[in-house]
């Protein structure tokens, strides 16, 4: 659906050239929700804005539905853009227009006639759950409602791709969840390909199938969300994974725990299927050990769960050894934690 090849964007300032995005190779399949995560300044916003040529790339190609956008100009480019919806962190609604008029805006741009516009606006208002608010102005809406208008507006011309530029970053956690739910529903019902830019791991975990991690303008890691969670290779990725699946400050937390008189402290990492199974209770029934849970955190993603748990496995040295073997067989990564 979307292929980025050798994509590069260099901004020229008076004193130097800054490469905001460099050497990006990405491939996004149809119907996928693809997340791009990175801290601010990583180049992710520039990257997503190159997907509809709001930011023309310095070099490389952007192929959407088999069409290289970098080769399009004028009317051709504008037509291609009508197939790519976009929503923004600050919604970017026209305050001078009502909800219905805002949603009708892209239809006016595309030259849809008035009667058809009205029917389509009515459908879209229903789709995003804003019935009864059609004649309200954006200033009379809450943040979540504004983003719903943004989504309806982005979908007006039945695009094949939806770009979300930090779409939930200005919203409170509850509203974020409802907007993410709406995006998931749209993805499933309309088979829309969604590209989400975010700095929140939470967003990736909730809705994305695949994720790319960006740092210093490049994609440092990408793959299915669960794989990346399970085996983060880069420091930056580990940092993001920690946000949701590990205690905030592992080392400090472990420091407060006294070394056990007998047995071992272990950090268990559950990934995918193993996270859904009662591994610990089976362990104590199978092996002669007691398991005392000191900390734990579990996060759910679209395709499964991921979590860590800090436990004290109490028993004879032999039993503890057997416990580690059992865990390994059950698909749980167990590592010994030493405290002094």
């Amino acid at each position, binding site marked *: 659906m979307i292929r980025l090849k050798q994509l590069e964007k260099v901004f020229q300032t008076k004193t130097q050239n800054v490469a905001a995005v460099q050497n990006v190779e990405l491939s996004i399949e149809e119907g996928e929700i693809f997340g791009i995560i990175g801290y601010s300044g990583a180049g992710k916003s520039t990257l997503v804005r190159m997907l509809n040529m709001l930011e023309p790339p310095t070099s490389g190609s952007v192929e959407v539905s088999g069409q290289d956008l970098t080769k399009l100009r004028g009317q051709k480019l*504008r037509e291609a853009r009508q197939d*790519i919806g976009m929503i*923004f962190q600050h919604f970017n609604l*026209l305050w001078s227009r009502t909800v219905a008029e805002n949603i009708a805006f*892209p239809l006016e741009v*595309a030259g849809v006639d008035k009667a058809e516009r009205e029917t389509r606006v009515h459908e879209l208002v229903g789709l995003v759950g804003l019935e009864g608010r059609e004649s309200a102005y954006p200033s009379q809406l809450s943040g979540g409602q504004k983003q719903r208008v943004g989504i309806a507006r982005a979908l007006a*011309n039945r695009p094949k791709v939806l770009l979300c530029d930090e779409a939930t970053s200005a919203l409170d956690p509850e509203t974020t969840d409802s907007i993410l739910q709406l995006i998931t529903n749209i993805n499933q019902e309309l088979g829309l390909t969604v590209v989400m830019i975010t700095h929140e791991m939470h967003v990736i975990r909730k809705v994305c199938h695949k994720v790319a991690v960006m740092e210093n303008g490049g994609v440092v890691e990408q793959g299915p969300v669960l794989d990346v969670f399970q085996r983060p290779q880069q420091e930056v990725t580990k940092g993001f994974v920690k946000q949701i699946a590990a205690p905030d400050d592992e080392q400090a937390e472990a420091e407060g725990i006294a070394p056990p008189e007998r047995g071992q402290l272990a950090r268990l990492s559950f990934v995918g299927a193993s996270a859904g199974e009662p591994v610990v209770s089976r362990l104590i029934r199978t092996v002669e050990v007691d398991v005392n849970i000191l900390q734990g955190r579990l996060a759910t993603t679209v395709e499964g769960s991921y979590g860590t748990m800090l436990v004290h496995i109490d028993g004879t040295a032999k039993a503890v050894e057997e416990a580690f073997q059992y865990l390994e067989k059950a698909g749980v990564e167990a590592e010994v934690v030493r405290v002094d």
Partner: protein
Amino acid sequence: MIKTLFPNVDWMDMWEATEETIYMTGVSVIATFILGILLGLMLYLTSRGNFWENKGLHQLVGAYVNITRSIPFIILIILLIPLSEWLLGTFLGPTAALLALIVGAAPFYARLVEIGLREVDHGVVQAAEAMGASQRQIIWKVLLPESMPALVSGITVTSIALVSYTAMAGVIGAGGLGDLAFREGFQRGNPDITITSTILILILVFIMQWIGDWVTNRLDKR
């Protein structure tokens, strides 16, 4: 009562002068609104990072705006005499004054328009671009509607300035309340005529301000 307070006021003359002032202000406000928006759009669109980014053109328009805006109006009228003779065949009367009024006010208003356009959220313009809107559509459907309250409050300020310009246009025989106050009131020593003219000008200004504020408030949905 009125006869004793204003013994020298000829109410027919006064009414005629009021009509002349309204005529000059009205026509020049409409022309300034259109011309000022065109110039303001030019200034905005040719500035850095905009559709028609063009340093040369931007500076040229900017220089024209700054120069005409800086010339004292009374001098501008005199400077424009040859132009009005060429264009209108005469440099006297209310219609000849219109040229000077528009040339004097449009650049001033153009700056206010430029400021108003700059206030339009850039994100909204980008959203429209992302939808595939053309530059024309962005100007008509985004830039102008989104800056309309600023454009209206700007034209209100400009039209009040225009009322005082019409008073100065008396030097080319434009007539109007200012001219009446000067010739009949001051030069002939009839203070009651000066005071009546002043009161009428004030009423005119208050009405314009009130209409301007009302329209601005109606338009502003922020």
